[in-house]
């Protein structure tokens, strides 16, 4: 079971399996589309023109490479390892999500698709999708849980400004997983002209691989930047995990650097001892949902339970299958951080570095705070600061008891 592979970077296999995870658990109606998508993705990967267009848009539209930043005052405040940030919150639209959306919309156009759909939780992926749809002139429908529509009204307005139709989903708990169900229902009914831009490294093969590949620009840049700035690799990578795309984007290019440790941070919500969390790896078990086998929050009968996190972007009862595999192999360590700890991390970063982070990476900041103190001053932590916090100021104000 725990045999170590020669490389951690060769997954998935040709059926989309990461060890026992991943795969293509979709209805027959979608299966031919998923196979077609895989063929088209392979062709795009082999086409230098596709890669050139992707790189060009990342540079001139998204604003890449994002900076690698030494957080001097935070490092001083913590009194341990050096803390460095990959500044993906400086991307156009304010998070890492846009990297993947650029890749997928180029693929959609290559396949001749005329209509884009997507699901969104916090709204960051919805905004990123609406953005690329506006950029390329394709109609766009975003499915969003009705609860999230209420919690994230600024992002709903952004999507509408960008020309997207936002459909509130009222089924189930009316959050991200229900939005994904509705996205799949739309796709199955509009198979001929519609491309589904999935926002995280989950779903049926080839999505987990494809999203990871598009997001790997984060780790590829960071690795080169770190070598150029410090002449060495970091000792520890830290990233938050909902579905896990920003973490995989950072981790994947480093997976075969044996001396680089990695820490994925899930959302513990009100604590792992109760039901009010979104930590699929630490508090869940393997199962099948949304096209892949992975760790899920579920009851003894396999019914999916609702996640909870202060961060709508982490509030999903599953996780990308590659993370499930990386956990089983032991290559990546996973922990969970509570709402309150994330809120402390949020405020700490605001005051030490003048950066208002999103609540999602605030979970990673909480983990950085803990780990840095236990490490030497010549050691380096590299954290992916994957989103900015403008969208979260209302949630934070409410939590702090401030009226704005």
């Amino acid at each position, binding site marked *: 079971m725990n045999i170590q592979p020669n490389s951690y970077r060769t997954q998935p296999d040709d059926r989309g399996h990461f060890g026992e995870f991943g795969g*293509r*658990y979709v*209805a027959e*109606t979608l299966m*031919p589309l998923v196979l077609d998508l895989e063929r088209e993705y392979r062709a795009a990967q082999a086409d230098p023109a596709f890669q050139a267009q992707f790189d060009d848009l990342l540079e001139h539209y998204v604003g890449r490479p994002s900076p690698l930043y030494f957080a001097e005052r935070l490092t001083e405040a913590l009194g341990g390892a050096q803390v460095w940030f990959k500044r993906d919150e400086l991307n156009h639209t304010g998070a890492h999500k846009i990297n993947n959306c650029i890749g997928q919309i180029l693929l959609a156009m290559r396949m001749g698709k005329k209509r884009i759909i997507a699901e969104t939780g916090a709204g960051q992926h919805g905004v990123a999708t609406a953005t690329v749809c506006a950029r390329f002139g394709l109609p766009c429908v975003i499915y969003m849980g009705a609860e999230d529509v209420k919690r994230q009204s600024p992002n709903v307005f952004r999507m509408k400004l960008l020309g997207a139709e936002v459909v509130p989903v009222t089924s189930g708990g009316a959050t991200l997983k229900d939005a994904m169900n509705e996205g799949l229902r739309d796709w199955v009914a509009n198979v001929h002209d519609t491309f589904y831009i999935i926002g995280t490294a989950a779903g049926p093969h080839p999505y987990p691989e494809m999203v990871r590949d598009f997001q790997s620009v984060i780790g590829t840049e960071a690795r080169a930047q770190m070598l150029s700035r410090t002449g060495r690799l970091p000792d520890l990578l830290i990233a938050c995990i909902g579905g896990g795309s920003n973490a995989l984007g950072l981790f994947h290019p480093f997976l075969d650097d044996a001396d680089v440790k990695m820490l994925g941070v899930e959302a513990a919500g009100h604590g792992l001892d109760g039901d009010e969390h979104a930590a699929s790896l630490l508090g869940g078990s393997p199962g099948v949902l949304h096209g892949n086998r992975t760790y899920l929050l579920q009851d003894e009968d*396999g019914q999916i339970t609702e996640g909870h996190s202060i961060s709508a972007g982490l509030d999903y009862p599953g996780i990308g299958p590659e993370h499930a595999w990386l956990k089983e192999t032991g290559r990546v360590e996973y922990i969970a951080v509570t709402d309150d700890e994330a809120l402390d991390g949020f405020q700490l970063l605001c005051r030490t570095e003048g950066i208002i982070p999103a609540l999602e990476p605030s979970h990673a900041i909480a983990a950085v705070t803990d780990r840095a103190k236990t490490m030497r001053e010549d050691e380096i932590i590299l954290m992916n600061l994957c989103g900015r916090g403008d969208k979260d100021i209302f949630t934070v104000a409410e939590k702090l008891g401030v009226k704005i």
Partner: protein
Amino acid sequence: MTRFSTAFAKPALVCFVTAGDGDTGANLDALVEGGADVIELGMPFTDPMADGPAIQAANIRSLGAGTKTADVFAIAAAFRARHPDVPLVLMGYANPMVRRGPEWFADECAKAGVDGVICVDIPPEEDEALGPALRAKGIAPIRLATPTTDAARLPTVLGGSDGFVYYVSVAGITGKQQAAQASIADAVARLKASTDLPIAVGFGVRTPEQAGEIAKVADGVVVGSVLVELVGQHGADAPQHLKALTASLAKAVHSAAKTTA
């Protein structure tokens, strides 16, 4: 002869309701009394991705009433005891089926007298997740063919399928639009050229007229959402309404004259 081959010897009416939504035992009896030839019992799931609003609502009602997997098997076993000859199929999603392992699920199916299983989100490519365990217990894995299943892919879908083939006549979710009769006839002919298994056609079938037309070209007609809506509307009084509708559907299906060989 299996229960399936007997049931599909003439055009068969296949009726679906969700387990644990209302008095399922009484509802199933009403379907059989009305003339249903095959029963599809839906296993409730929190995330029924391939279902439209009617069956989504039934899933929520059932889970809200506290239905457990053990209750689904208890309903199945009691049905089998009352109706020894009527084929019984469980239909649902992968996660509740594989939660305790595929062998456990197949074993429970066998003990409850279930004849076949339709799992919406296990395509042939992931067959090993459930198929081998079912076959080992003599339970038929019933596969879905759809309008997007092309000729190149059809052998993959039909291989390892048993009991009957469920032709999903529209690319979409349950209970929505209905396919054109001509496209159904073409699709069934295409399937028949590739398999000896009976072909049942479903998705969007709501009236005896539609059912009768489909029965002219297919071996079976699947009706679900309209029945589930009756359960939602009438609750404890649902059986009489189910029986009345099933009787008119059965009459149309059983009297359909084949237009093709």
